[in-house]
């Protein structure tokens, strides 16, 4: 590669007559001895001629036309002080502001998304009969189905999650700020909801599951019967005014044509739960009540409490007696109150082992829970409020302090 002569740039300046007389003399002397620079000078001058030779044919008629068009268009007035728009500027600004504010309000108040995120956990779940990849959206009215090997997780708006187990068919019925509702036709789901009570519902063929801030699993069989198992908080199973409020560690069933059955704790005996099933769904009547009363423990007062409402008049007295220990219990010690109470005014009657400290702790928990749904079960939050007979009764039953019919405040 040939090195450029250091004078090349000066040749360019020489061509443009940009050198002083002294420099001009120096460069000219150099040109006499440097072929590269001589060639460059020749080329630079040739380039000049070539560029100057560019001839664009003139179309004078077209030029006149352009000129007349420009002159006809007229001069514009100085910007900023005249013209219609100048006077309209404040109005335009105000209108723009209103439009922006309106759009802002619309965005702020926009309804929640009418579909939920669905994340595939296993297999090939389908939404509206189309398979989804890793993620999908479940819109209102659409069915989500899982086969025997697929599972998904649904984000319930911004209040929780529902895991859909295999062999399940479920539909999004409604989603808005005051109500989020699914319909479970068959199969199993596990729900965890972190929201105020009565925001999340699941319709089943035999009952509606109403969330009170909780975690639960729900199974619906081919006949439409459902089994609800609550693991945290409280859940209600309801249909046509019949309702079973189910606490944590308890089950409740429902069947088509019968609605919600009686809740029972997960550690209840098989005979007890079988008898409850017969009573609830197979017209077991007095025979079933006999077994229930015989098999019941102190803890099964939860179930007995519902039987008070649902048993016939003659059976109701027996259930009531059983609950109030007037007869039928040989294991009296089982009904001794535990070492705590939520009724400090009765503390003295209960003996020295009941303390006001426990009562105060309970009261504080109650109040604390009212401030933050996310930290407490629905009972502790106070969603079941004093004044609701079941509130007192259920707590008294649990702590063994139910003594007479006056404690029931229906």
């Amino acid at each position, binding site marked *: 590669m040939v090195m450029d002569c250091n004078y090349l740039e000066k040749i360019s300046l020489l061509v443009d007559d940009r050198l002083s007389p002294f420099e001009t003399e120096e460069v000219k002397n150099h040109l006499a001895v440097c072929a590269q620079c001589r060639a460059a000078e020749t*080329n630079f001058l040739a380039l000049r001629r070539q560029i100057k030779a560019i001839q664009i044919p003139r179309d004078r008629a077209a030029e006149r036309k*352009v000129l007349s068009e420009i002159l006809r268009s007229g001069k514009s007035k100085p910007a900023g002080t005249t013209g219609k728009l100048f006077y309209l500027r404040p109005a335009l600004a105000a209108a723009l502001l209103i439009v922006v504010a309106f759009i802002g309000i619309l965005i702020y108040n926009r309804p929640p998304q009418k579909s939920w995120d669905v994340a595939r956990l296993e297999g090939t779940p389908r939404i509206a009969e189309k398979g989804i990849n890793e993620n999908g959206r479940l819109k209102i009215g659409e069915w989500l189905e899982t086969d025997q090997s697929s599972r998904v997780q649904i984000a319930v708006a911004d209040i929780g999650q529902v895991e859909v187990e295999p062999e399940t068919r479920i539909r999004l019925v409604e989603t808005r700020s005051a109500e989020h509702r699914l319909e479970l036709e068959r199969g199993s789901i596990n729900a965890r909801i972190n929201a105020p009570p009565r925001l999340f519902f699941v319709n089943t063929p035999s009952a509606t599951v109403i969330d009170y801030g909780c975690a639960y699993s729900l199974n619906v069989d081919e006949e439409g019967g459902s089994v609800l198992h609550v693991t945290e908080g409280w859940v209600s199973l309801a249909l046509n005014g019949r309702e079973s409020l189910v606490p944590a560690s308890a089950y409740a069933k429902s069947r088509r044509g019968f609605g919600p059955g009686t809740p029972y704790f997960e550690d209840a005996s098989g005979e007890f739960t079988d008898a409850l099933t017969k009573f609830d769904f197979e017209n077991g009547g007095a025979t079933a009540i006999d077994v229930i009363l015989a098999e019941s423990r102190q803890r099964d007062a939860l179930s007995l409490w519902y039987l008070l409402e649902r048993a016939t008049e003659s059976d109701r007295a027996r259930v009531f007696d059983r609950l109030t220990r007037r007869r039928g219990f040989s294991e009296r010690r089982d009904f001794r109150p535990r070492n705590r109470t939520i009724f400090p005014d009765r503390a003295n009657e209960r003996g020295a082992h009941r303390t006001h400290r426990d009562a105060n702790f309970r009261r504080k928990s109650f109040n604390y829970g009212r401030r933050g749904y996310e930290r407490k079960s629905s009972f502790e939050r106070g969603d079941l409020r004093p004044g609701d007979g079941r509130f007192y009764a259920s707590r008294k039953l649990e702590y063994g302090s139910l003594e007479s019919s006056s404690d029931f405040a229906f």
Partner: protein
Amino acid sequence: MTFDEEEFTQVFTEIYPSLCRFLESFLGNREAAQDIAQECFMRFFRQESNVVKADEARFWLFRVARNLALNEIRNSKKRGSFLGKIIEIFYAPRPDQAEIYEQDEATRLAIEMLQVLPEHQRAVLLLREQEEMSYQEIAQVLNVSEAKVKVDIFRARKALQKRVVV
């Protein structure tokens, strides 16, 4: 200074042909060059003739022309990415454009040769060789330093050395 119609006509008559020549040499496209030249004078007449001094009108016009031409190059590159390809496929080259250049082979070769230069070097060289502007005037038009003008002219010449028809 405010240009009246007569003064504007004089400026137009003097500068419009050379502006068109500059733009066509710069862009290699007659139609775009004429559109831009017209746009420059339109802007000058409607707005800037109120504030631009008479002896600066030429510089102002070339400055705006160069800027609009750069915009045109950018836009045509964008168009070239998708629409231009479609047009290329479905339309034959415009015969009138080809005919125009056939009339003057030297002009066509010179304009083609200039297109190999970067835009800033092309503008500087054209203003120097075609419009015979001084380094100072070119610096004023392009709003750059004289030193940059000097370097750009040299680089442009050096780049075209081997393409020149001596």
